[in-house]
């Protein structure tokens, strides 16, 4: 019983870490850093 609880705890920790990792990775690269407002000069 003690071993089962430990296994479940470790399993939950791994799952929790994976959820957090996936969450953080999902934010990476989704927002471009060079967004802005363009100005054009000359006869374009």
């Amino acid at each position, binding site marked *: 019983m003690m071993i089962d609880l430990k296994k479940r705890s470790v399993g939950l920790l791994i799952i929790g870490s994976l959820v957090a990792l996936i969450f953080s990775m999902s*934010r990476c690269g989704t927002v471009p850093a060079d967004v*802005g407002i363009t100005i*054009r000069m*000359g*006869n374009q």
Partner: protein
Amino acid sequence: MKPIWPLFFSILSSFLQAALDPIELRAKVSAMYLSESAYCDSPKTVFTKDTVIQYDVFGFPVLGVADNSTHSFDGTYECIIFKLSEQFQFLPSVTATTCIFPNRYFVDVCTASYQNTEIDGTTSSCSSATDESVYLYLSTASNSNDPDVALQPFTPPTPLDSSKGIKLSSSFSVNGKVGGRLVINGINRINASGGTCTMAMPKFSFVKE
């Protein structure tokens, strides 16, 4: 099993409370000026907008087109000035504590600790009371490009103080057709850990296109 939950939530909340990114960031820019002086003296008006529109920078909007056929802007400029509203509207990319997606939030970036220098040289302190117009100075004489350190983006640099303004990485040369983009980078600038959803000063820069 009981001791594992605090650890689990601790890991998860550390990610949830991290600084957030916007997926929509709206700014109101109403005028642009160029100065051959690195201290932004005697600026030329490139254009001004009678009707101020709120632009979402993620849509790469075109603010304006200056016609060189009627007024030549050919030259090399060390300072670029934008007149903009101090108020930005942002949409956080996710829900995290006080920031609720898809709610939009406003932030006044020019708080009382900032000075604002108008195009005619008049200076004043910002207040949090109203949606004020401010002038953003990007100059080759400035050495400030980190919004997390104390800086005065709404005041031009001086020979004695290069911490004012925003660093312009190189001169802006105009010879006929040219384009440029005022970059407003809000990545990791949304703060969801306080009592309200707010955003710190975005990182401004200018790139030639």
